[in-house]
């Protein structure tokens, strides 16, 4: 098994009445709610947490890209990754990732990842999300109808730009370049491993199988939803005659460790509720731009929750019930995780050990206990498989 420490970097100073008073946490969040000096302090705290994770025995650290929102302070994950390349040793740095349809030309992303790979000694994972509708369509003005085609073209261009030894011309529909010849080149050859974050659309599964990429299911709906996702995912892998290598897939999971379930509730309930009730307060009109879902997905029965009032008021008990957070003593958490990763055949857990309004000392406590008292008990699971999606020059933890 491999375990990564995943940080969203929330702006945890939102006012208590944020959801009642404000339209949306994403896209049109009022700028006067943000204090740049406090933001600087948060970057310090959060980068310190990522660096700490790299010393505790996590296999890697994950950063991600979101725009114009209080849910995450990383419009550019590459900037945080640059700090981590210098401040961490050994572990993988997972960009999860760069929304490649947003960059013109997309070779900019190829260049930055190549820089990061050189700076980190070959420890980069390149993650390429399509991006949420809020980020891509509403914040970055991308046409929702052509977004996915543009994204796929960008992936072709970037992977080719790392692989081809000679300058080449690229005649795409969205990007035309006479001379593609990026400098520097990544240390990892033919390229860094590629992870594709997704929210469960069938076409993405086909595509990761065709392209040989890893699938990172980034749902915050909990492991019960993940179970359903992977009941459908693995048969798709079979249909491409690919082995069910557990490292081909990962999930994100909130984890809260204490001395007991009650203790964990005492420590973490308010912070996970804050995460849902504040950072998921997104105006319904921004969730799913017309055309963001493909006709195939809509025809397959996907319906948008297209309602006027979108109240996400979730309480601890409900979050436990849905499997959003796995909590309890180290033994209880170990037992549940072991069952889960065997049940759905997963080799990768992206651990959310900091979430919502959690202060720095509690984040350190949680991530440390997970690293020392949970992860070592699970290293042996899936050890018969080779992880083909781990950076060539990151350190493999014993048994992973």
């Amino acid at each position, binding site marked *: 098994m491999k375990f990564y420490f995943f940080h969203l970097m929330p702006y945890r100073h939102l006012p208590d009445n944020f959801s009642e008073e404000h339209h949306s946490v994403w896209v049109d969040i009022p700028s006067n709610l943000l204090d740049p000096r406090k933001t600087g302090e948060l970057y310090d705290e959060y980068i310190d947490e990522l660096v700490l994770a790299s010393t505790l025995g996590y296999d890697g650290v994950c950063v991600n890209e979101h725009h114009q929102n209080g849910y995450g302070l990383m419009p550019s994950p590459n900037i945080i990754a640059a700090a981590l390349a210098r401040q961490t040793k050994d572990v993988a740095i997972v960009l999860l990732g760069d929304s490649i349809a947003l960059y013109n030309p997309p070779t900019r992303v190829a260049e930055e990842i190549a820089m990061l790979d050189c700076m980190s000694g070959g420890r980069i994972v390149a993650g390429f999300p399509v991006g949420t509708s809020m980020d891509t369509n509403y914040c970055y*003005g991308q*046409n929702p*109808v052509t977004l996915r085609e543009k994204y796929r073209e960008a992936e072709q261009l970037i992977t080719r730009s790392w692989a081809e030894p000679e300058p080449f011309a690229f005649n795409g529909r969205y990007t035309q370049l006479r001379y593609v010849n990026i400098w520097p080149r990544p240390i990892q050859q033919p390229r860094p491993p590629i992870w594709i974050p997704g929210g469960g659309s069938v076409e993405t599964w086909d595509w990761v199988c065709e392209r040989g990429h890893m699938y990172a299911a980034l749902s915050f709906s909990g492991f019960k939803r993940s179970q359903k996702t992977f009941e459908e995912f693995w048969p798709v892998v079979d249909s491409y005659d690919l082995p069910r290598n557990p490292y081909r897939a990962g999930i994100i999971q909130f984890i809260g460790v204490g001395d007991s379930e009650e203790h964990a509730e005492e420590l973490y309930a308010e912070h996970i509720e804050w995460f849902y009730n504040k950072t998921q307060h997104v105006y319904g009109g921004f969730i799913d*731009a*017309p*055309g963001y879902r493909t006709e195939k997905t*809509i025809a397959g029965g996907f319906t948008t929750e*297209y309602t*006027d009032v979108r109240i996400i008021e979730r309480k601890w008990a409900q979050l436990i019930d849905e499997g959003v957070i796995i909590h309890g003593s180290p033994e209880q958490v170990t037992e549940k995780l072991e069952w889960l990763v065997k049940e759905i055949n997963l080799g990768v857990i992206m651990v959310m050990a900091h979430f919502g309004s959690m202060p720095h000392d509690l984040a350190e406590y949680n991530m440390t206990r997970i690293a020392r008292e949970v992860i070592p008990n699970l290293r042996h699971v899936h050890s018969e498989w080779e992880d083909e999606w781990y950076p060539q020059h990151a350190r493999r933890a014993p048994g992973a």
Partner: protein
Amino acid sequence: MPEPQQRLVRTFDGAVEVPVRITGEGPPLLYLHGPFGLVEDEFIAALAAGATVYAPSPPGFEGSEGAEFVHEDVTEITLHHDDLLRALGLDGPVDVVGHSFGAFLAEEIAAFYPSRVRRLALISALGLWLEEAPQPDLFGLTPGTLARTIFADIESPAARRMFTPPADREEARLWNRARRRGLIGAAKYLWPLPDKGFRRRAYRVRAPTLLLWGSEDAVVPPGPYVDAYRALLPDATAEVLPGAGHMLVEEQPAEAARAVLSHLRGA
């Protein structure tokens, strides 16, 4: 009057197919509907009293095929309409009327192919963006807010009809899908702002033009936008219907059709 008929018309050398409703008697009139699909039955019927109305749906809308073949820029969708007019045998100048997104399409036909358009009527037209009068984001609103934005009175029968899904589950699913496909078809050409450069091409429009607006249009406020169109189309005449919103073709179909037909007759 002959029975309304539905024809399927192919463009782009057969790659794209769109449905065209044909109804009425008289000189040909190309009618291009708004982003919610062809819902304005009464308005069409009133126009059909004085014209043969050809009402196509653009690629992407319900009943169309091959929308992905047409790129999202304005030249491609306007080429599509040139192909469409030829396929319909409408080679001489025709009257062109458009509402909302349909007016955006109509004004481009008049700018790219001035000799194809005899007279032009732009109703609640999208196609310009004024810094001093920013428009609401039609594609980023929940249904309730959308209803309040496009109708002057959300309690009106027209508003209720448009925002009440059929009771039958399967019909409601199809209704939802048609509505969604319409928004997708329109968003493709209007995203993220409904200004694709008509301002630069407006000088090419030769057809006498009617600017028909609702006084309460909260999408494209008549004050600044009618003025802006008049500045671009010096020979245009304007008529503002009191009490109507952006959906005036549904809110005041008889008055709207009267204004359009009298303009087309040159009165």
